[in-house]
């Protein structure tokens, strides 16, 4: 794996306001990088610098070896950018929209027809080929916008809040689409407020606050960095949870233990905080089974990225 996005000491100031402060970040080729943080944290500023729409005050950034400040034209050819609002022409038909942008990227006329078909199939809008863009739903417009970013087959996709304002179904469709793009070898750099979504598809996550990167890595790394407790849920056969709790009490990595009844769950469930690694969790499960605890399920609760996020950020806005 080689670095495709390299950011070193990137700073952006607007007068006295520092929107981005000495950001250092490296994204490997093929990664799906989720950029999260509260509003005003500097996510959009970073993305706009990477897309060459904004010049940094200091520091440097490179995409596919091209400097965003010195080689903007080269950078624009290797990136596809989707802003956080719809960039669509309502007066065009769906195929015309893609055809127009393909033409802007110098894609030859004889290649465009096939390419448009491929892109529409990818974003599941084949049956809307001749529909007016105006008639599309919000989710469809968002997918069309994503298809547009692919018109010139870029290596890197920079997506600002791609799922913002979408209903749950459209959000799932967008997530699946990002997975497909990752499988196609694209490097995806995207921002989101929907933490569970980031956790599901990202290989790496960066948490920004007040213009600074406060945490970076995969979720496991971050949990370790921030010493965040994981929430584990165990379900046993029957309602006799005392033997299970006894073992858990003795384990050094187990924190607070909650009975299922206390959190409006069934009495056969026990929840507990766990501060250890995956290996330690695996050992704990093995120990429970060896101790003849009738385990039915043993799983980590999703939503723990929110804990990471809350731990990493203090609600400070630059």
């Amino acid at each position, binding site marked *: 794996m080689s670095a495709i996005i390299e950011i070193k000491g990137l700073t952006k100031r607007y007068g006295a306001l520092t929107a981005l402060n000495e950001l250092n970040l490296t994204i490997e080729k093929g990664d799906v990088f989720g950029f999260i943080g509260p509003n005003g944290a500097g996510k959009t500023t970073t993305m*706009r610098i990477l*897309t*060459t*729409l*904004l*010049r940094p005050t200091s520091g440097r950034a490179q995409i596919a070896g091209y400097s965003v400040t010195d080689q*903007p*034209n*080269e950078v*624009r*050819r*290797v*990136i596809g*950018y989707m*802003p956080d*609002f*719809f*960039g*669509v*022409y*309502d*007066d*065009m*038909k769906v195929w*015309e*929209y893609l*055809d*127009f*942008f393909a*033409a*802007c*990227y*110098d894609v030859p006329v004889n290649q465009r027809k096939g*390419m448009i078909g*491929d892109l529409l199939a990818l974003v599941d809008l084949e049956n809307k080929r001749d529909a007016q863009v105006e008639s599309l739903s919000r989710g469809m417009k968002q997918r069309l916008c994503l298809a*547009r970013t*692919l018109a*010139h*087959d*870029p*290596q890197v996709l920079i997506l600002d809040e791609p799922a913002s304002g979408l209903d749950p179904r459209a959000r799932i469709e967008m997530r699946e689409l990002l997975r497909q793009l990752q499988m196609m070898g694209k490097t995806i750099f995207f921002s989101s407020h929907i933490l569970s979504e980031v956790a599901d598809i990202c290989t790496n996550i960066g948490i920004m606050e007040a213009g600074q990167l406060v945490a970076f890595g995969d979720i496991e790394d971050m949990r370790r960095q921030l010493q965040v407790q994981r929430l584990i849920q165990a379900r046993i056969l029957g309602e006799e949870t005392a033997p299970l709790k006894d073992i858990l009490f003795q384990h050094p990595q187990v924190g607070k233990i909650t009975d299922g009844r206390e959190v409006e769950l069934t009495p056969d469930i026990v929840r507990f905080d766990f501060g250890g690694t995956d290996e330690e969790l695996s050992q704990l499960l093995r120990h429970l089974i060896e101790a003849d605890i009738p385990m039915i399920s043993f799983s980590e609760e999703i939503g723990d990225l929110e804990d990471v996020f809350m731990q990493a950020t203090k609600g400070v806005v630059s």
Partner: protein
Amino acid sequence: MSNKPPTQSDSISIRQFIFTLRQNPIYLREQGHWGEPNSIYANINRYSPFVIMGALVLGVCGGNNFLSTIGMNSGTEWLILLLCIPNAFMQMLTWGGLFMVPALTAPSVSEEIKRGTWEILMLTPQPVHHILFAKLFGSLSRLRIWWLLIIMSVLQGGVTIVAAATAASAFDAVSLATSLMVAIGLLLQPWLEIGYAALVGLTVSTWAQTSRAALITSYSIIFGTKLVIWLLSLLLISILTVGILDNESLFTVGFSFMRIFMYAGGIATCAAVLYRRSLSVETWSSK
């Protein structure tokens, strides 16, 4: 699909760009190749018969006004009259152009900014100044007055040459030079006025947040300029009337060239602003 390496299209000259303009997608888009880019123009175009009628009246009145104010005592009436016939048509086309051209250029960028497509366009390999050129010429190409304006200009130029050749022996050098300079002024004025209106529309478009605001501001500037010129002409006429300036020929030539310089200055200012804006994408994205 494969990644394209950077091509030389990034650095092609303006000359090459103009030569290949007809293949430029942004130019073609402005012409209505992909959808209807300008709903304001489409709406205004429905009222074009009224614009033509209004322009006809204003054009004829403009021509008559010209006849009544200059050249009546110089013995060159017939020459002036010959010049004024195509000029009346050119005036008519100018008035029509002044109404229609801002409707074409003023929404061209502001509409993109409103739609959120401007930044996307700027991230294509098309340099900003190429985008602006393509938008300007693409939108103007939708107006159907250009051939008529060219024909009238040629006609007026031809009339001027024929008149000058036949009158060379009949009139003194000053009258002849005056008539020629007025004729040159009349020939240039419609092009400069329409060019000024187009560039004002485009320049305002790069600042305005909505197409409607861009259009209203453009009309205000364009017709404001016309009003200033009209007031200046009144001032000059009153100076002439009270006898401070007693040379009608000097007045006529002076006024004609003052108009030309004002419009040429306006065009140069707009071009300079647009050029400066096109140097960096950041000046647009910071909006």
